[in-house]
């Protein structure tokens, strides 16, 4: 208690932790991230020992290329999950954006404009999601499930169920080869990961997202505009899904109503694998990126080992289950790590958030 009062307020984050200090929390988080990296590394070692083709530059390119779309969706999903919700409608926004992007490009709309239009589409969908969830008070599961159905249905309706191939290959510019032979969209994902990390870690918006997921009521009491923030998170998530749809269409040179059908569950899985908690308030973009790479490496390695797709599905489920078990274990262990500063946190949190918000 005396420790708290003697600490200068400006040096505290919203959690009341002295910024820049090595704390039990940051140590725990570091262990968690390094644990994930260790798991990814172990997976890589197993596949490298089992298949001569795994440790090749071309294969790493393949892993990154096939993981990129999920990576984009999962970054948006990370924000939604940290904020205490989740977004199933991404699996409808992806195909809708993919077909509309193909159609607008074919209609002669310049590529940058077409991409911006799809981002705007994502923003509108996210705005509706956010308003329905925050203002009307409908559960995110129901609201985003309904939006999944609506957007997915539109994707089939506007195309009458057929795929829409690009008339001009330049519309697939995001899948063109970039530096190091990696497609442009892989670099785009790398950039988005960095931006996501910076936003969550160093901006007021990011910290408010954590606060919102940690406790909606406490955030409200601290002066956070809870409804607006919730809406902003869903707008961001849907925009990322729309971007994923554009990237996927660029990669395949066509849009289709049945693209990205498993994106909702896979993106949630990637966030959880990366240390996110469906209870909200916990998760990082770095962790999610590692989670995406774990899923991508697993699919790639199993394909190289010629493991039947049936077993691949089982293996993915087992890994996810292990990750959730790990998450529970972490939740059980966390209080021990946090105990040291628990009083410090409880007394200082509201004040620090209020200060940062104002």
């Amino acid at each position, binding site marked *: 208690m005396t420790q708290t009062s003697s600490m200068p307020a400006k040096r505290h984050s919203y959690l009341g932790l002295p910024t820049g200090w090595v704390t039990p929390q940051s140590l725990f988080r570091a262990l968690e991230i390094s644990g994930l990296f260790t798991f990814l590394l172990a997976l890589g070692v197993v596949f490298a020992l089992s*298949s001569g*083709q*795994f440790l*090749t530059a*071309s*294969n790493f390119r*393949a892993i990154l*290329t*096939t993981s990129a*779309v999920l990576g984009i969706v999962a970054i948006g999903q990370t924000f939604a999950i940290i904020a205490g919700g989740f977004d199933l409608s991404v699996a409808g926004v992806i195909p809708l954006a993919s077909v509309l992007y193909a159609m607008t490009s074919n209609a002669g709309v310049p590529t940058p404009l077409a991409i911006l239009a799809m981002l705007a589409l994502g923003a509108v969908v996210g705005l509706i999601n956010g308003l329905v969830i925050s203002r009307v008070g409908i559960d995110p599961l129901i609201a985003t499930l309904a939006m999944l159905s609506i957007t997915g249905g539109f994707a*089939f309706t506007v*195309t*009458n*169920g*057929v*795929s829409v*191939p690009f008339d001009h290959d330049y519309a697939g510019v995001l*899948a063109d080869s970039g530096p190091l032979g990696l*497609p442009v969209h892989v670099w785009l994902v790398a950039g988005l990961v960095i931006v996501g990390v910076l936003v969550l870690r160093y901006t007021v918006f990011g910290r408010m997202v954590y606060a919102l997921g940690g406790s909606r009521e406490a955030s409200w009491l601290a002066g956070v505009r809870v409804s607006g923030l919730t809406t902003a998170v869903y707008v961001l998530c849907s925009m990322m899904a729309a971007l994923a749809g554009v990237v*996927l269409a660029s*990669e*395949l*040179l*066509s849009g*289709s109503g*049945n*693209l*990205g*059908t498993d994106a909702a569950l896979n993106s949630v899985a990637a966030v959880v694998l990366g240390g996110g908690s469906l209870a909200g308030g916990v998760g990082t973009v770095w962790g999610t990126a590692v989670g995406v790479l774990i899923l991508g490496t697993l*699919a*790639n390695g199993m*394909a*190289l080992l*010629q*493991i*039947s*797709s*049936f077993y691949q599905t089982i293996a993915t489920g087992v890994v996810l289950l292990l990750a959730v078990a790990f998450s529970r274990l972490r939740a059980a262990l966390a209080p021990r790590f946090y105990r040291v500063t628990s009083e410090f946190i409880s007394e200082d949190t509201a004040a620090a958030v209020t200060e940062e918000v104002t």
Partner: protein
Amino acid sequence: MRIRPRIKWLQVAAAVFALSVIVSACAGSSGSPGASNSGSPHKTLKIDFANINDESAFFHSVTQGMKDAEKTIGSDVKVRYYDNKSDGNTTLQNARLMVNDHPDLIIEFYGTEAVAKSAERLFKDANIPCITVNVPGAGGCTWYDLYNPSLCGQTGTAMGKIAAEKGWNGSNTAVILVAAASFGPEINTCQGYYYEELQKYVPGITKISSYKDITLSTTRVGSTTYQVNGDGLLDKTFNSVTNVLQAIPSSKHLIVYPIGDDMAIGAWRALDQANRGSNSIIAGLGGDPRTLVQLRTNPSWVAEGDIFISHWGELLLPMAKAILEHRTTPALTTSPLAVLTKNLTVPNTLIAPMSNFYKGSETNATELPPLVPVKDGDLPGLDKQGPVGNDYLGAIDWLRKFGNVSGLS
């Protein structure tokens, strides 16, 4: 005071309504076109058709083709349409609705075989003959389908001949088969039939003794052949093929066969992105307009298994008439089939240039392949043999009205 008269009026109104419902129901039950015309020389056959999924343009073309066929045949037939929405419950609900409609015959395009037993029991109990499309069903209906041994097998023949002409063999070539696990085992016999024929023409690739050696769990056949699952989806196929390409040295030629056109497009994109398109040959299955364009313009796209799905109505309605006339039908009535190529022709097979069926840059067939004589063959998915073919339809006058079947005047 004023309530009692109102109740009386309501009672009278309810009684009149109930009576009118009963009367109209009785009229409806005997009011089918077939029944109303009984005794007259001209009888309109009443047929109920449930399509697998009308939201899909590919499958909706069956409904559209059926409507076109109904129009061509004229007043001899009246079809009522249902949409199974690729859903078991909807299929069963539609089956009940169709039974209540008392048609002369039901045509059922299943999305899932799981409901076949229940649906066909309903048809049997109502004593309504039926045709099952796409899957053998539970045995209660007459079966109409494409024929994997011919279509997939002869695609193997065409691609095998093309690969052999290029000098490709087991030492310099790998084969990638793309399955669709979610389509079920009957449809996925295609890869086995394909490979069984392909191996006859490409020396040195790993041999199989029967098409059954390649199942949905197969991922590798010896050192030359790989199978991945694309699940019928464009993006999933792209990822699966991208991954498996890492296991195949870039010096190898590739023979790629996905058993559906969406998957073929996804596989081609993966080959192209890996800069391996020019060293590959690929074929699709379905006759989708996009893949017909590929066959015309892409040097690596060497064949396309065409099932002429938008023309199925032309054969299904005459088949219905044949059943109602108590003609002998084979265990499997086959759809029109052709293995389209750029210019390869193999006599006495389905393999023929696409220009035989499609004019100019058209993607709608103007000519259908000839009818196929009925003879014993494998019944895919039933693991037995039986009569297969469709030439008995040539005797049905309805089919002749279309004037587009090769060899049928």
